[in-house]
């Protein structure tokens, strides 16, 4: 008590000390510009500016090799690139090939992945270890994955074919040298690498479903089907949507795996739009035309992306 009064007295005596903080002049407006500008500049310069550039190029007959840096002097041909492209049956085949890859791949990955998630969504020994381990493939470099599967899918000495042929005694599959098997190979490898992605997201959704809902259902003697249909699905679906959109987009953009595993072949049987674009741009160096294809490709991406981002934001809003 007493010493407190002394303390109080002393404090009263010593004049109140205001803070001496630095950077007071730096108000929030200034600060936010300071924080934001570097990021925005980099992105504008490296991501947006080139896009605009290529938009311009898509109206020219420019070719990097032929008239290297002198792109300003490239002949302006207006919409002709687009005209030729849209008339060209090639492009449409490429889109078909792409779709023929995207749809089955995402479907398989989704069913497989969600199934695994349902299986693993219970507590058992080593749960976290197992779930983490099976996630490894999606973190690996697609090039390495592609190369190594190429090794495993060899028809003569590949291990997979060994099982097919010598263990199950079926006739050999020419994975990389026949059209249909080549496409199946792509689906297979992408499934191997990206199913974990679906598993991860599905598990998140499943474990977020409050346990007491199932308990209530038990007390009401609900069927397993009711629980799945009325409790599990509705609560997990938003996350599943996100997962699927992500996969749709990535498989649509897929370049590296195709490039490494099949190189678009045999024939053109697996040459999807990205590979096609690449070959036009850096095989035959028709830069202008390639830019055109790029922009046609973008239409689809932008649609998917804006949808995806809307869902993501929604998710955020709900989580917050």
């Amino acid at each position: 008590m007493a010493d407190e009064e002394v303390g109080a007295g002393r404090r009263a005596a010593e004049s109140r000390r205001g803070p001496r903080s630095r950077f007071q002049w730096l108000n929030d407006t200034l600060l936010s510009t300071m924080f934001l500008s570097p990021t925005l500049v980099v992105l504008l310069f490296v991501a947006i500016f080139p896009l605009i550039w290529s938009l311009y190029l898509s109206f020219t007959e420019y070719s990097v090799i032929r008239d290297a840096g002198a792109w300003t002097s490239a002949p302006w041909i207006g919409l002709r690139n687009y005209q030729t492209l849209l008339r060209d049956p090639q492009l449409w085949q490429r889109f078909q090939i792409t779709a023929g890859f995207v749809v089955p791949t995402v479907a398989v990955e989704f069913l497989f992945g969600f199934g695994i998630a349902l299986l693993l969504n219970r507590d058992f020994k080593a749960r976290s270890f197992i779930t983490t381990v099976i996630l490894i493939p999606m973190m690996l470099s697609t090039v390495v994955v592609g190369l190594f599967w190429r090794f495993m899918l060899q028809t003569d000495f590949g291990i997979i074919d060994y099982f097919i042929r010598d263990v199950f005694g079926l006739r050999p599959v020419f994975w990389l040298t026949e059209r249909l098997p080549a496409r199946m190979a792509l689906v297979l490898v992408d499934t191997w690498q990206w199913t974990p992605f679906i598993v991860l997201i599905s598990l998140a959704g499943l474990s977020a479903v409050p346990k007491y809902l199932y308990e209530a259902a038990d007390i009401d003697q609900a069927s397993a089907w009711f629980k799945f249909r009325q409790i599990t699905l509705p609560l997990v679906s938003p996350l599943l949507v996100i997962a699927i959109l992500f996969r749709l987009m990535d498989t649509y953009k897929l370049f590296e795996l195709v490039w490494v595993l099949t190189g678009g072949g045999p024939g053109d049987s697996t040459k999807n739009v990205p590979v096609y674009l690449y070959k036009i741009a850096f095989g035959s160096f028709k830069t202008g035309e390639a830019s055109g294809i790029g922009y046609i490709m973008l239409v689809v991406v932008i649609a998917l992306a804006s949808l995806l981002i809307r869902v993501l934001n929604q998710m955020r809003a709900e989580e917050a």
Partner: protein
Amino acid sequence: MNRTRRRRARSLIGRILFWVAVAMILLFFLFPLHWMVVTSFKRTAEVTLLPPTLIPWVQFNPTLKNYVEVLTKMPAGLLSAGTYKQSGFPQALLNSILISGAATVIAVLLGTVAAYAFSRFRIPGKGDLLFFILSTRMLPPVVTLVPVFVMFISFGWRNTFHGITLLYVAAGLPFVVWMMKGFFDEIPREYEEAAMIDGYSRLEAVWKIVIPEAIPAMLATAVFVLIMAWNEFLFVQLLNPGKFTTVPPFLYAIIGYGRVEWGRMAATSVIFLAPIVLFTWLVRKHLLRGVTFGAVRR
């Protein structure tokens, strides 16, 4: 009582089936990795041997030959091919480390402050800005590749260190911004506000209170950016074929030229993948955020 016994029996069968299923899943996802590691320890003759030998020491005796060669000798194919003269695998590995390392540091630093701004300040058109930032990430690489290639040609940035690094920074930034914004949104504003009340400017508050809070998040984010840059193939193989190339194009080249030395390829891959596996384990808690740009938490 026998009712309970029946229940127990049923649950036992269920458990067995469950573990069988888990085993098969693990087999599917892990066998290729096992096969890669095993192959990397085989002599050239054993690599393509059928029936395959799966268990070292038991079925074949492992050798480090491949690893030694990877680190010392140039692959025969590459020598004849002429490119990569000065850069063997060690060089490529060093490049990978330096480039992805630099890109990661820069991206995380710039992205974090931007994310803070997005999380705390009222910014006109915030939604659109965030959308714009993320959308740059959604662009198909091949599409941007064309103009970027042109740009690099005309700026003379091909086969430079800074060119490719800047590119990876740009690739990493959107991710960092979204990730870190997610984390910042979870750090209560009251911390800064308390600090500001206690007599500090906002900048000081951020530096003294918020950043220390955010460091674990920043590290996790960094790992993802690092892996991204580490794995990138498309741009670097086109823009930096020369002395600033990284491991993925190098690997591809091994296959690309002449006779394929699978054992050696496997060894190279193992060296290249090992750090990724390690990192994946380190950030396992954050994988979910990582793959959803921080939109989905816990």
